[in-house]
């Protein structure tokens, strides 16, 4: 059967996808199987189906990266990446948010500043030899990390990936937590046992610790939503995957599980163009990863990942869908990773014009311009004071982190199992209210398989 997507580039009015699933959810409601019909699918008389992927961007960068053989001065051949496309396009404006007011915009801007300045501090700590291992950066992705996490309610859950260190700040972790992780300190959230953003908190901040393997958080967050739903709560569960990570099989399994179970997964696909050194052209064939949502039967939208307002609006719509029990949403955020994979990687494989193009779309510079010059919600003086305040916070956090001792060698031991009453386990949102069928226990008949 043929099908055809219709990606409406002209769709800038913010009209949103409304998936047609009307499953009743919450404790006791029979939510499976989810209805397959969708108002989004239109059949024409010719029998061709069309689907829509709302695209909220105010520009549509269209580049192609390919491998090319170059000769150096000695005539030796080298394979290099080159980029083709309109790299001189003007920078688009920030799209006004449907939801955010002045105060909220300034708060998000402040988180983005904290995000960036924390990473600058981490880079300096690395250069001073204080970091164990490498440092990962979210440069150019701060709007995506911070505005997405800002859209969650307090009881919602999330799990960051390595470039979402800003999300951690928004959700209530301190910069010193991440800094101590990088320095493998005794007071780090994992007490030295893991680094980077690999930590979590199931008590207060509702964060699942990431692992290095990509995609595995997606079914886990779906399971969090399942657990909460059994306890009578429709929660939003947000996590992230890159254009590289989405190639993994568990990504498919996790999204599909959330889709058939109608769980409140809010999946940000961070299309940052480079997976370590591999361009997105070598990860997937479709035009935009949001199109994959069609295959899962869930809404998919595209936003400019460098525009905090677009990121927030899409995230908030998805979070509210989750709270209403309407199931998962995939949000593709387009942007670029503005450093190498980690601090050791100079990203010399990236064609320079790509850096130049996206540097002009720096999420913080654009948002600053929007708040100070366009909206005049911040005076230049207030902005300076805000930046100064953030820098002071980061300096104080840096001091705390640096002064934490290293863990003792013996602290490597213990804690493998939960034992001796170290945790009391009970349903976080209350014991599920269960009803029982009339069927009593009966011995089962003989099995049919492999006797």
């Amino acid at each position, binding site marked *: 059967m043929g099908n055809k997507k219709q990606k409406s580039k002209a769709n800038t009015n913010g009209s949103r996808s409304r998936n047609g699933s009307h499953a009743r959810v919450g404790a006791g409601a*029979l939510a499976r199987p989810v209805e397959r019909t969708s108002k989004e699918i239109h059949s024409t008389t010719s029998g061709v189906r069309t689907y829509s992927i709302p695209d909220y961007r105010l520009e549509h960068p269209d580049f192609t990266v390919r491998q090319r053989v170059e000769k150096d001065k000695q005539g030796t051949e080298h394979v290099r990446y080159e980029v083709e496309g309109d790299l001189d396009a003007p920078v688009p404006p920030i799209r006004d948010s449907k939801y955010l007011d002045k105060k909220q915009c300034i708060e998000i801007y402040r988180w983005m500043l904290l995000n960036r300045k924390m990473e600058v501090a981490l880079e300096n700590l690395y250069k001073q030899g204080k970091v164990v291992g490498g440092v990962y950066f979210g440069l150019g992705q701060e709007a995506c990390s911070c505005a997405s996490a800002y859209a969650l309610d307090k009881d919602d859950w999330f799990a960051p990936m390595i470039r979402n260190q800003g999300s951690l700040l928004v959700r209530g972790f301190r910069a010193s937590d991440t800094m101590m992780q990088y320095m493998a300190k005794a007071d780090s959230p994992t007490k030295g046992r893991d680094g980077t953003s690999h930590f979590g908190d199931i008590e207060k901040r509702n964060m699942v*610790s990431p692992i290095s393997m990509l995609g*595995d958080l997606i079914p886990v967050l779906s399971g969090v939503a399942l*657990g909460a739903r059994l306890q009578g709560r429709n929660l939003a569960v947000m996590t992230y995957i890159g254009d590289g990570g989405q190639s993994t099989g568990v990504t498919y399994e996790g999204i599909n599980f959330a889709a058939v179970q109608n769980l409140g997964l809010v999946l940000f696909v961070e299309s940052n163009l480079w997976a370590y050194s591999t361009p997105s052209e070598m990860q997937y064939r479709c035009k935009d990863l949001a199109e994959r949502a069609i295959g899962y039967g869930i809404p998919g939208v595209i936003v400019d990942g460098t525009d905090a307002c677009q990121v927030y609006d899409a995230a908030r719509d998805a979070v509210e869908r989750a709270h209403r029990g309407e199931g998962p949403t995939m949000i593709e955020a387009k942007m670029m990773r503005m450093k190498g994979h980690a601090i050791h990687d100079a990203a010399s494989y990236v064609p320079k014009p790509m850096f130049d193009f996206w540097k002009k779309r720096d999420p913080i510079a654009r948002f600053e311009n929007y708040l100070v010059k366009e909206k005049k919600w911040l005076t230049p003086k207030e902005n300076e004071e805000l930046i100064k305040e953030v820098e002071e916070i980061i300096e104080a956090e840096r001091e705390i982190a640096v002064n934490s001792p290293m863990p003792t060698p013996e602290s490597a031991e213990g804690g*493998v199992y939960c034992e001796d009453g170290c945790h009391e386990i009970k349903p976080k949102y209350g*014991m599920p209210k269960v009803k029982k069928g009339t069927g009593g226990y009966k011995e089962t008949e*003989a*099995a049919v398989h492999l006797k």
Partner: protein
Amino acid sequence: MQLTYLEAIRQGIWEEMDRDPSVFCLGEDIGIYGGAFKVTDGFIDRFGPERVIDTPIAESAIVGAAFGASLTGMRPVAEFQFMDFIGCAFNQISNMVAKTHYLWGAPAPLVLRGPSGGYVHGGPFHSQNPEMWFVHNPGVKVICPATPYDAKGLIKSAIRDNNPCIFFEHKYLYRRIKGEVPAEDYVVPIGKANLAREGRDLSIVTYAAMVHTALEAADILSKEGIDLEILDLRTVSPLDREAITQTVKKTNKVIILHEHSRTGGLAGEIAAIINEEAFDDLDGPIVRIAGLDSAIPFSPPQEHHYLPKTEDVVREARRLRAY
């Protein structure tokens, strides 16, 4: 009451779901169909589709979702249709679930269960004993019961445990053995071995279906005046070091018997424990009886050749006795 091994497991999960609303089941075909071996037969009618969830064929998603739900304080029981398929979820178990408590202090009270083992001509993808993949993963507990009593008591312990437990049900035993199971609630502690037969001449350290193979061998050998002691480990991670040491100190001779391949198998680990704890007590070499170092073949004569048999135990016991 007399119950089959399968019925004992089924009753154990049923009673835990009845007792504790935070327990729920998920897996492939476990709902209306009742599971490939009918372990969850009738559960969906009693506990509802919210708590008896048919999933897509996606083992990483099943384990991931069970783990996520456990983080909210639920106690999921996830079924693998065959334990051979646990390999599909290996990363989720090894890198996510097993490391969680050690790394960031989150308990994960979930159970992964399903049928394993040979002797039913299931072929290379429906007969495996993949427990060693997880014995080498600190952070998960690995349970392999041999009797209906232990199966019920241990599945209850696993569901109530605050750690991830992998519960290997031996499919050869499912409906072949019956045993006395008390009507009242009871549990069998995880990590404690059981002396399945007391004896004085030599010890067989084993678990799961091989306990019955060892018991058969003991009957044959008793007629020759050889008195076997049989230690049923019940849990293979954590191992009951004390019970292993005690039986070796008592009989001074030991055979370790398991179904899975010899190289890198559990016998090597147990031999090392004996070496550390009871070296001076040994009066003969530590003997291993195990599956061949190959995949487990399909055709009955080949499978028979691959797997340990009663006659192997009898032969090795006679040889070791002579030391």
